C-alpha cells in the first residue's frame, strides 16, 4: 500500500528549540492517529504537513508529494480541521463553508451545493443560516468539520476533533469520523491526546513524546491479535483437565488464581469450541473477555520508555 505520509528524519525547529526531532515513519493506514501528551508536537506535525512550518532537516511526503516543493498541490488535496476555534463570527455557517470551498477551487454553484450537503451531513442543516458567532462549541466543531470536507479532499487532517465536546457531541463527532473512514473515499489523520478517540477512529497510531517518535503501531493488527487473546473466569470441574484439553487443541494457556485463565487461541480454533471443551470437562465459563486497552498499554510503555522510544 502506498504511504499516505512518509517522514524521513523530519526535524522542525522554532529558533533554537527543536519541536520535531528526526521523525522517521511510513504511515499507510486509512485512518492514522497522532497520539501524544500536550506539547508532544502533534499540531506542529500537522502544520508541517500543510506547509505552515518549513522542515529544518529531513523530508516529509504527503500522498507521494514533497512538502518542500509541492505544498500548494498538497493543500489542494487536504481538508483541515484545526484544534482551536476557526471561523468568521459575522458570517453564516453555510456562506463561510461555501467561501472556503470556492477558495479550494470549486466553482460557485458546486461550492454552494456542497456547503449545504456538508452542513446536513455534520448535523447542522437546520442552523446553517445562523451566524457562526452564535454557534455553541459543539456546533463550531461540526462546522469546522463541514468546511474541511466540503471540497472533497483526499486526506483529512483532524486536530483534536473532540476538544471541549460534551459526551453526546463527542459520540456524534466520533460517529461522523468513523462514517467518513468507512466510506473509504479519503484518508484520515486524527491528532488527539485522548486514547479513546484514536482507538475508536484509527487503524494506525503514531505516538509522539517531546517531539520524538515514541512508537508507531498498527492498531488493526493489534486488534486482530487481541481477538485471539482471551481471559476466562471458570468455575467447577478440574481446571487442570480443562487446561490440558485446551493445550491439546493448540492454545497457549496460563492459569491464574480463582479459576482465571489467560489463553491465546490458534487461528483455526473458534470461541464456540471453547464452550464445547468446557462442557466436556464439566467446567463453567462464567466470563469471557477479549484483551482490551492494547493502545493504552503501548502508550504507557512508550511514555515510560527511556529515551522515549519503544
Amino acid at each position: 500500500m502506498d504511504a499516505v505520509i512518509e517522514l524521513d528524519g523530519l526535524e522542525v525547529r522554532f529558533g533554537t528549540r527543536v519541536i520535531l526531532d528526526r521523525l522517521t515513519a511510513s504511515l499507510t493506514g486509512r485512518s492514522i492517529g497522532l497520539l501524544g501528551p500536550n506539547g508532544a508536537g502533534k499540531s506542529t506535525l500537522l502544520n508541517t504537513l500543510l506547509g505552515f512550518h518549513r522542515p529544518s532537516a529531513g523530508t516529509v511526503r504527503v500522498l507521494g508529494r514533497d512538502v518542500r516543493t509541492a505544498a500548494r498541490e498538497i493543500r489542494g488535496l487536504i481538508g483541515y480541521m484545526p484544534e482551536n476555534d476557526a471561523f468568521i463570527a459575522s458570517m453564516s455557517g453555510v456562506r463561510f463553508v461555501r467561501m472556503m470551498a470556492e477558495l479550494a477551487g470549486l466553482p460557485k454553484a458546486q461550492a454552494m451545493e456542497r456547503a449545504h450537503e456538508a452542513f446536513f451531513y455534520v448535523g447542522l442543516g437546520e442552523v446553517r443560516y445562523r451566524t457562526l458567532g452564535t454557534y455553541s462549541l459543539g456546533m463550531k466543531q461540526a462546522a469546522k468539520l463541514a468546511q474541511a470536507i466540503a471540497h472533497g479532499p483526499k486526506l483529512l487532517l483532524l486536530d483534536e476533533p473532540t476538544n471541549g465536546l460534551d459526551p453526546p457531541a463527542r459520540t456524534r463527532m466520533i460517529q461522523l469520523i468513523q462514517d467518513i473512514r468507512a466510506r473509504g473515499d479519503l484518508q484520515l489523520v486524527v491528532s488527539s491526546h485522548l486514547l479513546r478517540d484514536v482507538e475508536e477512529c484509527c487503524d494506525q497510531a503514531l505516538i509522539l513524546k517531546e517531539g520524538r517518535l515514541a512508537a508507531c503501531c498498527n492498531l488493526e493488527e493489534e486488534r486482530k491479535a487481541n481477538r485471539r487473546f482471551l481471559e476466562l473466569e471458570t468455575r467447577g470441574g478440574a481446571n487442570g483437565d480443562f487446561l490440558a484439553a485446551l493445550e491439546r487443541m493448540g492454545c497457549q494457556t496460563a492459569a491464574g488464581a480463582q479459576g482465571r485463565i489467560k489463553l491465546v487461541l490458534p487461528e483455526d480454533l473458534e470461541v464456540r469450541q471453547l464452550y464445547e471443551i468446557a462442557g466436556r470437562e464439566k467446567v463453567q465459563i462464567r466470563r469471557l473477555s477479549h484483551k482490551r486497552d492494547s493502545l493504552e498499554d503501548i502508550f504507557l510503555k512508550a511514555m515510560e520508555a527511556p529515551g522515549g522510544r519503544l
Partner: protein
Amino acid sequence: MAVYKKTYRPYQGDLTPRWRRLLVIPRYAFEDLHRSRFLNVFYLASFIYPLVAALIVYAVHNASVLKLFNAEGAERLISINLVFFQSLLGWQSMLALFLASFVGPGQISPDLANNALSLYLARPFSRAEYVASKMAVLLILLSLMTWVPGLLLFALEANLEGGSWMFDHWRIAAGLFLGSWAWILLLALLALALSAWVKWKPVAGGLMFGVFFVAAAFGAVINNIQDTNWGHLLNVSFLVGSLWQHLFEGGQPTTNGAVFFRVPSGEQLPLPACAAVLALLALACLYMLARKIRGADVVR
C-alpha cells in the same frame, strides 16, 4: 444530490483556475460592504465632484448650455487645466482616505479574531495571494474614486478639445494615473497592516487618520522649532503631494500642488527623500503584514 441525503461524497468535478480564486475574497467582501447603507451613500456621494466636474467640462465647450442659463462668457472664468485636474485628484484622494479608514480595518481583523486565517491558508492559497485578494477589495473601490473618474474626465476634455490637447497635456493623464496608484497603494497597505494588528475596528480607523494628521502636526512642530522643512518628512500628504507635483509638472513646478496635498513653493524637499520615506512606510506595512499573516503561530 439532494441535500437531505446526509452523506459524504468526494468531489470529482472541475476546479477553477488559480486566478479566479483570487476574486473569491473580493466578491464576498463586496457583498458584505454592499449591506452597509452608510458606505453605499458615502460611496455614491464621492462621485458628486467628478460628475460636477464633467458637467463643467461639457458646459465650457458648449456655448448653448451656458446660454440656456444666461451665463454666456462663463467659460472664460473656468479653465480646464492642470489645477482643475489636480483639485479633482486632491478631493477624491481625501475621500479615498476616509473610505479606506472605514473599509480597511474590517478586512483582515475578522479573519484573525477567531483564527480563520489558518483555514484560508490550508487551501491552495498562499499568504501573498491572501494579501493581494484583500488589497484588491480596497484597490478596486479606491480606483473607482480616483484615477478612473480622473482619466474619464481627461478623455472627455480631450474629446471636446481635440487630439492635440491630449498630446500637449499627457503629463496630466500620467499624473492622474500614477499619482492615484501611489496614493491608493499606500492607503491599502496601511489599512491592511493596521487591520492585521489592531482588532478593534474604530481604533484601526482612528490610527489611519493618526498616521496622516497627527504625524503631520508633529512634523509642523519640528519645522517651527528647528526652522527647517525636513519635518515635512513626517507629513504623508506632503510627501505624496511632492510626488504628484513631480508627476504633473516635472522638475519646475508652477503650482502649490493639489488641494489637501499642498507643497508650498520654497518648502519643497528633494524628491528622492520623499520617495524613500514613502517606500519605507510601504515596506513597514508589508513587514507588519508578513508578521501577522501566517497559517500557524510560532511560539519561539
